[in-house]
């Protein structure tokens, strides 16, 4: 009886397909963020089911990370420690059912404590830090947990409108189990007064905004060393098949 019921449910759910969650995901066109005006597609997206080629992502077991990739306070040292407030970011990567996504790659990049990116195109008149690159990466463990050390990024001005300043943020790139779980996002900080003025953050519907704000956590904070922030990430979809494609 139970077995039969289970079978029926399985058959039923396999035929239901979901679009992205527009309750939390930003639209492509958000005119307050000016760069969207000439870059957002204008025609409706063609909706399709994924095929075999979209079912599996790259096999990240093939990639070996450097010993200091997860520690941005050390991975670019030239002649001393980087300046700024040391912090540790920790969290769990899950699918929409709340199941951990193990062994997935997380790539991060950010500005330094003064709000300056190492990127050659960044012309902001704030100092570079010779001991800080601002790029790193880590993988989730078997339980979907990740952790990295860095310096709290500064805010910086940008050209979207007069007196536009980006709130403090760290960029995240994740893969998950297949092409539909691909995510590039930004982690913000609690209580940042710039969030209310930032069109990139405000482009996210109200229901989704809190999901991008990390939480200060005294339990993660390392005594005499680094402030702790928690940032959990939920990737789109779920996949019962193993993540590695071999």
């Amino acid at each position, binding site marked *: 009886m139970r077995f039969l019921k289970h079978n029926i449910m399985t058959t039923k759910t396999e035929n239901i397909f979901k679009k992205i969650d527009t309750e939390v995901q930003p639209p492509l066109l958000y005119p307050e963020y000016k760069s969207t005006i000439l870059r957002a597609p204008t025609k409706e997206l063609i909706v399709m089911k994924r095929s075999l080629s979209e079912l599996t992502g790259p096999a990240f077991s093939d990639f070996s990370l450097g010993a200091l990739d997860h520690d941005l306070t050390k991975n670019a040292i030239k002649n001393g420690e980087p300046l700024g407030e040391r912090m540790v970011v920790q969290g769990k990567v899950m699918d929409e059912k709340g199941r951990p996504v193990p062994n997935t790659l997380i790539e991060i990049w950010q500005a330094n404590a003064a709000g300056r990116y190492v990127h050659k195109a960044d012309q902001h008149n704030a100092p570079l830090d010779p001991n800080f690159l601002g790029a790193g990466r880590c993988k989730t463990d078997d339980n979907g947990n990740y952790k990295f050390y860095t310096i709290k990024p500064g805010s910086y001005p940008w050209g979207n409108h007069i007196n536009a300043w980006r709130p403090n943020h760290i960029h995240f790139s994740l893969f998950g189990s297949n092409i539909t779980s691909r995510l*590039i996002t930004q982690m913000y900080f609690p209580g940042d007064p710039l969030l209310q003025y930032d069109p990139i953050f405000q482009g996210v519907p109200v229901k989704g905004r809190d999901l991008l704000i990390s939480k200060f956590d005294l339990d993660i904070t390392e005594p005499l060393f680094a402030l702790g922030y928690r940032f959990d990430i939920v990737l789109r979809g779920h996949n019962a098949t193993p993540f590695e494609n071999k």
Partner: protein
Amino acid sequence: MKQTPSQTVGPYFAYGLTPEQYGYDFKALVGNEMVNPLERTDTITIIGKVLDGKGEVVPDAMVELWQNDGQQALFGRCGTGTDSESRFIFRTVKPKALPNQAPYFTLIVFMRGLLHHTYTRIYFPEDAALNEKDEVLNMIPAERRNTLIATKTATGYEFNVRMQGKNETVFFEILTKE
């Protein structure tokens, strides 16, 4: 659980996501050489531009090429900021056709000004018969299908991504299973 919302890749992704291509002192995990040309004789290049609504080339996009024909799964990544004409370039091999489908690549496009990345596909001009029967191509209005067909070049294919305009590239939303 609610999905974590997407945010733009921004203008400064290069030293984090494509560091070696842009000359930063950080090892890259992936690049645009998806196969080793010294090991194979069937390599092709895919080259193209990303164009905005004014038809101007986008020099700060990042594109990822995903391919998987069941025998070979390959993944590449390239920024448009290092080529003199702001093109992306990949070296790979042509995927094989899957049952009832024409061969194709999936391309994911990220850039400043896109709050959420977009998916498109690259099909091949020499596969006209297969393209005509392809399930996905047939979902697209006939007059827009040609935006997904690459042009043959001496070393491979050219494929431009037009974000807007008369020949706006077809972009997809890929459904997930409930």
